């Protein structure tokens, strides 16, 4: 057959044969063979009817026909043997042929003109007999291949058949080597596709007798003697230790001997990929100067690179998950260093090789598909010529730099990916899109409350996120979101086939081949299909700013879609129930409470949610229940088999954690969860985490427990998704199962690691990008489409009121300050400031406490974290007492002696009859008449005054350095010799010694404010914040002493309050009673979140917090939706004290931004700076 062809072509023909053989040819390969000229020139039809052996199935028949056609003279017995042997191979005909030729004495003799393909090396000595023992043949795979596709192969086979015998004697020697090569040979792939070519100047390492022929096939070969594993080749820095050029040799296929080697940079490039079945190389000699080569001579080869079906066919998902899970384990055990296993290094090595190859071949990712398609025809890729192309030189040099540190490459590619990410997500949801979200108004039948405009928009968004598109307004946006490409993947365009083979064959590119391929260079995955982002996630993060009504929005969602309609309508797990089967593979293991939404809230909000639901819900069929763990004996039966399961089941983080701990203790394996009766025994239609930042630390039991809850839709509500560090977000992502980010590996790679490397922008950008589609945040300042602010809150006025320490406070403060300063100085000198951190913290705490009230010191306060660090410094309460005693005897006049006191009390009792209702004493200072008896103060000369007036007078005289005399009789008086009235058990008043020092300046100031407020606008509700709950105790007592009981009610709300009491306290406080001033003493830690206190419009912040956002949180308890009045907040700050400095640090924090704090070193530095600031 070949005789009819021109010589030149004949040779190519051989080349073709050999090149494909060198790549492990596959007769079913569509690409190669279709492009082959042989295929076009001489199509052949298979004569099915000619087969004499039809006893097998059609496939077998095909195989036999094929075989018979290809090797007409083979006898039936041999054919059957081959059939049996290769029946189950992926490439039966090829294998069989190979085998056949390898083992059979050749039949055809022909002068050998071209070099031999090593794969076709025969073992000429093998007899038929040996073949019998080896070969049985068979086929079952041909049915998938068009018959034509085998044609070229048949031709090649004949060619080789002819050529084989002739050369076999000469080649016998090298057979062993070739077999070795064969052993390493790559598994068969079904197709390969060209990705690029380059011309490489190689260097001869062996002299050749004759000049190498133009177009001869060469093969890459790793010199086996010095084969290193990549693992060994890289030292710990990832730098190469060995010169690659020594390892990668070029082998002449014809003569099967080494001829030369690749330049180092190319060797580096290809070395890791030679063994990779997913990549194929073809090397053709282009120029060798038509003379024989001496060692060191250079010659030029063309290196064609292909990707093979192996790369695309790999079940990478598995390997990816595998590697991720192993990574995960490592990261779990150590947060800092990532230890890579040998396998992982190999993988990484290959990945980097691929990336390097891509870069080298200038394969660019497709950013705009349409544009690329347009350009495709004009775009003529060229074969890269290393010698001539200047631009390539620059690329090479750049490449070299990159090669210095392979991590650079990775980083480079990461950042590219980031840009892509951003573009990609930003189209999904811009703020413009937010503004234009359609509104969904729940009907009156289901929701009693009116939603604001933005809440209606939020409802649309939430319904969409749950996939309830029909209920929400339709929009194209939804479609766009559904077809988003997985951001980790890049799109590439297949380059025009410029390989030696195709050029030579002038084969035109197949039009029906896909134009693009996709690669995830981070995992090494390749695909012909566009990898879609899995959108199985239903739910998201609603992160509206505090006070925008996250609760109401969520309730509207729940009421709009109270149960899983897709579940209720369909039969259980029917075929078409794709949603369920896909997304619920794990969930279906548990019974599905399709009618119940589980809401997990902090304890303080339990009843608020409950009552809000009752308020909002207008459908009597829906109801909410609170789950305490004990109140429902079997949740499963209750929710699934119960007649009227609650629409909303509210529980707390504590209960979830509790149940989980119990399960852990009984060491029930995960599969046995079904046998439990609690929250973990079933999966919910929807899970809502209120104040979701509670789970931000994924190491906590609470967080772990929450992760185990299963549900179809998952929502996180939080006004502050990031409290301290970016990784706070991870737990939320994990809870939501936001693929692929919920894999810690991805998170680390794209966020944590760039963050640690201080690529803050990058990390933040990724977080933003990840979050945008699942994240809805509106702030109070946002404006709607009409430019109106979302929320029109009444103005808020925050006043910092600077106070001076009282005399007693001042003495203690100075003493403590000296001590603290000393220890800081000492620490700074020695450089071990942070070792003393806790000591310093305690010192600082002391100072802050003194600013509030001296008696705070030494009080045991379990709610105060700082204090619970019970260290030696704490036992200083007695110190302070001693100190006070000392200073008193020094500076302050003596107080009453016991006799004087009794005398004074006697006189007062004689002069005034307090138990006579008509008693009317006038304060000569403010002219109030009568002075309320609980506010009266007597001088030692028994003259009555208002407490406030007399104390103010004392203070004034002291400042002016004037003698302290009784305003009425000018008798010298002393601040320590005052008397007040105390109500006895029986309601009678009796004079007692008044200890002026017990009042700290803040309490006095607060009392004044409250008094003034009551005077100017009686019956206000006031919230007083402090972070020390023992300070709340002191405040409570002091205020009860000072304020008239008739017109003042004081409530206290802190962590020690039981759930029931919390509820009643809040309820009572919120009721307005005319004329009665209600004061709520609120501990930030207990009531900082979630509470709605809009009934009050006055707040006093007694002490500054370290974190300004905490203070804002507190203030937002009253400044939020529902507030109708101007809000006035007064913050008490002691002048020239640590509190003023704390204000400065707050400012600093505001500017620096706490999220930036992640770096430990940086944090440390900053802490030292802060400490210095405090003690400047």
């Amino acid at each position, binding site marked *: 057959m070949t005789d009819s062809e021109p010589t030149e072509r004949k040779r190519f023909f051989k080349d073709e044969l050999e090149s494909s053989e060198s790549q492990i040819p596959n007769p079913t390969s569509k690409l190669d063979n279709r492009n082959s000229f042989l295929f076009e020139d001489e199509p052949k039809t298979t004569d099915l009817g000619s087969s004499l052996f039809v006893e097998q199935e059609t496939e077998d028949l095909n195989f036999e026909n094929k075989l018979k056609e290809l090797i007409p003279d083979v006898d039936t017995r041999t054919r059957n043997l081959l059939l049996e042997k290769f029946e189950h191979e992926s490439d039966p005909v090829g294998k069989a042929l190979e085998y056949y030729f390898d083992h059979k004495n050749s039949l055809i003799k022909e002068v050998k003109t071209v070099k031999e393909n090593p794969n076709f090396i025969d073992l000429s000595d093998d007899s038929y007999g040996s073949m019998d023992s080896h070969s049985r043949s068979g086929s079952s795979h041909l049915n998938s291949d068009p018959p034509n596709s085998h044609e070229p192969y048949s031709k090649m086979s004949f060619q080789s058949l002819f050529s084989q015998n002739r050369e076999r004697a000469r080649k016998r020697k090298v057979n062993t080597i070739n077999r070795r090569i064969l052993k390493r040979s790559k598994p068969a792939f079904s197709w390969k596709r060209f990705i690029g070519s380059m011309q490489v100047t190689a260097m001869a390492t062996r002299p050749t007798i004759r000049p190498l022929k133009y177009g001869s096939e060469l093969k890459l070969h790793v010199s086996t003697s010095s084969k290193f594993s990549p693992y060994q080749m890289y030292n710990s820095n990832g730098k190469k230790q060995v010169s690659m050029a020594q390892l990668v040799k070029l082998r002449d296929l014809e003569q099967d001997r080494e001829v030369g080697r690749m330049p180092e940079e190319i060797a580096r490039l290809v070395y890791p990929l030679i063994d990779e079945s997913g990549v194929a190389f073809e090397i053709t000699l282009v120029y060798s100067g038509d003379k024989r080569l001496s060692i060191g001579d250079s010659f030029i080869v063309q290196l064609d690179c292909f990707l093979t079906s192996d790369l695309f066919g790999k079940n990478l998902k598995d390997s990816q998950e595998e590697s991720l899970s192993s990574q995960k384990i490592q990261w779990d055990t150590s947060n800092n260093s990532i230890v890579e296993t040998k396998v992982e290094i190999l993988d990484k090595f290959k990945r980097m090789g691929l990336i390097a190859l891509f870069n080298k071949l200038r394969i660019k990712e497709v950013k705009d598909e349409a544009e690329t398609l347009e350009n495709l025809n004009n775009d003529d890729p060229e074969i890269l010529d290393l010698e001539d192309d200047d631009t390539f030189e620059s690329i090479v040099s750049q490449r070299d730099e990159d090669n210095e540190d392979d991590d650079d490459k990775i980083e480079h590619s990461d950042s590219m990916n980031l840009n892509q990410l951003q573009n990609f997500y930003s189209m999904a949801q811009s703020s413009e899109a937010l503004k234009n979200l359609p509104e969904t108004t729940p009907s009156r039948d289901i929701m009693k409350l009116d939603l604001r405009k933005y809440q209606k928009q939020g409802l649309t968004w939430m319904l969409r996120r749950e996939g309830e598109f029909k209920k929400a307004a339709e929009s194209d946006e939804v479609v766009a979101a559904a077809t988003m490409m997985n951001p980790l993947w890049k799109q590439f365009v297949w380059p025009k086939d410029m390989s030696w083979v195709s050029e030579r064959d002038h084969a035109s590119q197949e039009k029906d081949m896909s134009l693009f391929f996709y690669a995830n260079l981070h995992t090494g995955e390749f695909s012909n299909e566009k990898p879609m982002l899995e959108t199985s996630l239903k739910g998201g993060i609603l992160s509206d700013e505090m006070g925008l009504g996250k609760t109401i929005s969520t309730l509207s969602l729940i009421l709009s879609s109270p149960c899983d309609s897709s579940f209720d309508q369909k039969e259980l797990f029917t075929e078409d129930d794709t949603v369920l089967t896909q997304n619920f593979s794990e969930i279906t293991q548990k019974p599905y409470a399709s009618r119940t939404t589980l809401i997990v809230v902090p304890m303080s909000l339990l009843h608020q949610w409950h009552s809000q639901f009752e308020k909002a819900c207008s459908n009597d069929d829906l109801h909410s229940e609170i789950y305490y763990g004990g109140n429902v004996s079997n949740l499963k039966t209750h929710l699934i088999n119960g007649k009227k399961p609650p629409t909303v089941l509210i529980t707390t983080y504590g209960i979830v954690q509790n149940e989980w701990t119990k399960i852990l203790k009984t060491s029930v394996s995960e599969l046995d969860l079904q046998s439990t009766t609690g929250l973990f025994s079933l999966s919910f239609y929807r899970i809502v985490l209120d104040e979701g930042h509670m789970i931000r630390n994924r190491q906590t039991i609470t967080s772990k427990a929450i992760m185990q809850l299963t549900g179809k839709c998952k929502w996180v509500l939080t006004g502050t998704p990031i409290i301290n560090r970016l990784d706070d977000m991870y737990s939320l992502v994990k809870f939501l199962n936001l693929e692929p980010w919920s894999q810690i590996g991805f998170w680390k790679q794209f966020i944590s690691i760039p963050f640690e490397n201080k690529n803050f922008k990058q990390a933040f950008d990724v977080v933003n990008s990840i979050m945008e589609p699942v994240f809805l945040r509106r702030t109070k300042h946002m404006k709607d489409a009409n430019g109106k602010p979302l929320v029109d809150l009444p103005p808020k006025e925050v006043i910092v009121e600077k106070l001076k320490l009282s005399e007693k406070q001042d003495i203690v403060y100075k003493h403590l300050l000296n001590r603290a300063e000393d220890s800081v100085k000492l620490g700074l000198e020695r450089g071990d400031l942070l070792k003393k951190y806790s000591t310093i913290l305690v010192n600082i705490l002391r100072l802050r406490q003194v600013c509030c009230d001296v008696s705070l010191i030494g009080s045991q306060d379990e709610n105060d974290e700082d204090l619970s660090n019970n260290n030696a410094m704490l036992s200083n309460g007695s110190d302070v007492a001693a100190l006070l005693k000392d200073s008193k005897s020094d500076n302050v006049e003596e107080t009453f002696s016991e006799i004087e006191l009794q005398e004074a009390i006697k006189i007062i009792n004689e002069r005034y009859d307090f138990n006579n209702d008509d008693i009317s004493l006038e304060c*000569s*200072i*403010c*002219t*109030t008449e009568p002075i309320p008896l609980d506010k009266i103060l007597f001088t030692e000369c028994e003259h009555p005054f208002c407490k406030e*007036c007399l104390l*103010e*007078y004392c203070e*004034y005289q002291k400042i002016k350095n*004037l003698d302290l*005399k*009784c*305003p*009425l009789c*000018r008798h010298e008086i002393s601040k320590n010799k005052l008397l007040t009235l105390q109500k006895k058990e029986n309601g009678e008043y009796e004079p007692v010694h008044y200890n002026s020092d017990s009042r700290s300046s803040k309490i006095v100031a607060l009392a004044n404010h409250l008094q003034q407020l009551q005077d100017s606008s009686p019956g206000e509700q006031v919230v007083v914040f402090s972070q020390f709950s023992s300070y709340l105790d002191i405040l409570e007592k002091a205020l009860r002493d000072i304020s008239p009981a008739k017109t003042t009610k004081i409530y206290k709300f802190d962590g020690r309050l039981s759930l029931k009491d919390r509820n009643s306290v809040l309820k009572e406080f919120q009721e307005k009673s005319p004329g009665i001033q209600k004061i709520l003493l609120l501990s930030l830690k207990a009531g900082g979140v979630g509470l709605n206190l809009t009934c009050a419009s006055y707040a006093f912040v007694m002490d500054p917090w370290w974190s300004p956002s905490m203070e804002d949180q507190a203030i937002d308890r009253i400044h939020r939706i529902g507030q109708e009045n101007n809000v006035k907040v007064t913050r008490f700050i002691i002048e020239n004290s640590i509190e003023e400095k704390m204000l400065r640090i707050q400012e600093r924090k505001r500017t620096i931004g706490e999220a930036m704090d992640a770096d430990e070193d940086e944090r440390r530095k900053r802490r030292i700076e802060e400490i210095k600031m405090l003690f400047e």
Partner: protein
Amino acid sequence: MASLPKRIIKETERLVTDPVPGITAEPHDDNLRYFKVTIEGPAGSPYENGLFHLELYLPDDYPMEAPKVRFLTKIYHPNIDRLGRICLDILKTNWSPALQIRTVLLSVQALLASPNPNDPLANDVAEDWIKNETGAKAKAKEWTSLYAKKE
């Protein structure tokens, strides 16, 4: 300006409803802490038949601080200087918040009745008063008819 303390309102009301004989005090329309005061010269004193105009101002710290009082009418008195400033202990060191506008003005009236040249403010007048009490009183009388004539 901060709202007027209750006490000032109360005092002002009382000055109007229950005036001290021979003394008037009216708050200024624009500033309720500023009072126009008149005091009649006490009978039997050189200032008899005279009507003396004064101004009284209640500082922010009142009643912790004494009110500021000054004669607007020229007067020949050892404890009152040419600018009308008054030397009176209760307006200085001996002030007590228990004192009021009313008591202050009574004290001023009393000072007119019994000058105290031993604790002078206007040194020349005091000297004159000690050396030649009759002459000084005559001069005071003359000044009264000259400057403090009743309408």
